[in-house]
């Protein structure tokens, strides 16, 4: 006889195997794992110091010595991309974590209690959803000033409302299920019902949305960096690097092209993973 934990482990493994068999899922897993490893081991694998200016070697084209060439200060672009993965991934993971927590609390409370609290909270989300994401993030990021933490705050302000809506929707669907009623009948507290009985039901859609949004926030943060409103130079943030190379695009195309390619690959990786997760976990999301 298997214990409860063993059975749940087995189910998770099955889902993982299914994810690995999904053509897009496999590519997504590979890309995201490689990126995370790249960020973790950046000091070990980057060939040069990302901020060391080799002034004799400015704007050098890609070669065996500098795989992706050097930038206008003679810094090795590959090394800057590798270190940059730390910036992009930490912004994305932190922002998505913060938004998930806020959205989870708001969505649970709103869906579970309903009534006036629900109306109030949902009207607030309506306001935040009335802005296009990039525009709202731009507005807050520029008001808060430059810096990684301000970017994370700005992105969290933009995204939380989508999570609140998502979670609330799921809670509304299951609120009147028999097992919730039963838990209430035996005298379980609201907190206990929310965390023991409702939370497990929202993890699948939450996981899918969060994975997709890691891609989305990498893109959004790099857009802010590109516009000069997010992370500032000399930090090797990918969007900042594309922006710095913009002046040289006609001749020294590599300065902008490679960092941009990594924004694309990273975003695509998490989007593929999220898309495959949606298939595997059979989650239906509105957006």
């Amino acid at each position, binding site marked *: 006889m298997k214990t409860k934990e063993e059975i749940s482990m087995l189910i998770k493994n099955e889902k993982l195997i299914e994810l690995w068999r999904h053509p897009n899922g496999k590519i997504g897993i590979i890309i995201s794992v490689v990126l995370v490893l790249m960020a973790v081991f950046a000091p070990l694998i980057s060939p040069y110091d990302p901020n060391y200016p080799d002034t004799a070697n400015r704007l050098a084209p890609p070669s065996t010595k500098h795989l992706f060439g050097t930038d206008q200060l003679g810094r090795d672009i590959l090394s800057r991309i590798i270190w940059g993965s730390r910036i992009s991934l930490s912004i994305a993971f932190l922002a998505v974590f913060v938004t998930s927590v806020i959205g989870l609390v708001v969505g649970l409370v709103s869906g579970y209690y309903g009534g006036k609290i629900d109306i109030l909270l949902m009207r607030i989300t309506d306001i935040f959803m009335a*802005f296009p994401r990039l525009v709202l993030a731009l507005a807050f990021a520029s008001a808060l000033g430059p810096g990684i933490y301000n970017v994370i705050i700005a992105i969290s302000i933009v995204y939380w409302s989508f999570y609140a809506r998502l979670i609330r929707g799921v809670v509304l669907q299951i609120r009147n299920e028999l097992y919730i009623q039963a838990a209430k009948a035996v005298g379980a507290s609201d907190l206990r019902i929310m965390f023991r009985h409702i939370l497990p039901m929202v993890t699948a859609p939450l996981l899918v949305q969060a994975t997709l949004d890691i891609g989305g926030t990498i893109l959004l943060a790099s857009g802010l960096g590109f516009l000069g409103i997010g992370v500032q130079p000399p930090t090797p943030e990918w969007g900042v690097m594309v922006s710095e190379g913009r002046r040289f695009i006609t001749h020294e195309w590599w300065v902008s092209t490679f960092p941009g390619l990594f924004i694309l690959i990273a975003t695509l990786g998490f989007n593929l993973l999220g898309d495959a997760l949606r298939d595997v976990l059979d989650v239906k999301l509105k957006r």
Partner: protein
Amino acid sequence: MRVRKLIARRIALMIFVLWGIITITFIVARVIPADPIGSILGPQAPPELVEKLRKEWGLDKPLYQQYFDYIINVLHGDFGKSIKTNRPVLEDLKQFFPATIELATFSLIIAVLIGVPLGILSALKKDSAIDYLSRMFALTGVSTPVFWLGLVLLYLFYYKIQIFPEPGRLSVGVQPPDPITGMILLDSLLRGKFDVFLDALKHIILPSIVLGFYNSAYIMRITRASVLEVISQEYVRMAIAKGLRRRKVILKHVFRNAMIPIVTVIGITYGSLLEGAVLTETIFAWPGLGRYATQAFLSLDYNAVVGATFLIALVYSLVNLVVDVLYIYIDPRTRGALEG
């Protein structure tokens, strides 16, 4: 009657949301920055000038007073003067807005041309290599930084093989037609200037591809899901069972019913095009709202920031309102859901 009540409710919500938008822009422009004047003028600014601007902006008044003045001004369309252009912000917005509408509309056409056929193909060949490749293509679109794709395409198609012209709306030396709508493509046709129209058309293609590709993914996904859902319906299986040809079934039974969600998604996409325009316009020197907003954000031109943010959010919510109302009309089944 029920429909009318629903629409009235939706419009009431819109008014509330507008108030919210005004409040958020107020917070962004006046509450978060510790010293709006100081951050614009810099630390060496003469104190008389700082004092003068403080008075002019009403920053010497208490916050709640500023807030009420602010709401009244915005409702009158008065966003104050832009520091950068030294003109009323409303004038600026009127000038830059048509360019963005033009770009967004053209991009929408491209997004639909990519998204709808790919979605249908993907659904009809579900779980085949074509399905996965189409989904991959669409996901690549939504994962591509538009600012970077714009640069790469400009490098390839303007600098290297010169099939598309330089950034901007028109070539140097080409006179824009006298404005009627402010949209050059439309105005040049209305004025009968076909050479200007062709020049403008060449200029809009590249930025529209960039923006359209990014937005095609969502259209593709909904098209796929929608076609898949209709295909599995009883009446479609019935039609096939009766021996109708597959082609005919797909055209007559599937597409007609699958179009409803697709139409609404196209509406929603229009809103997100406005957002993509911010980055695309920066790359393609497109003198639209997005570029105006970005420059305002960078130079801390708060009046312009508020004006542009407000207008973009306003259009975005109006589009959503129209989509919701259309939805209520097109698909009676949603009425119950919206009421609940």
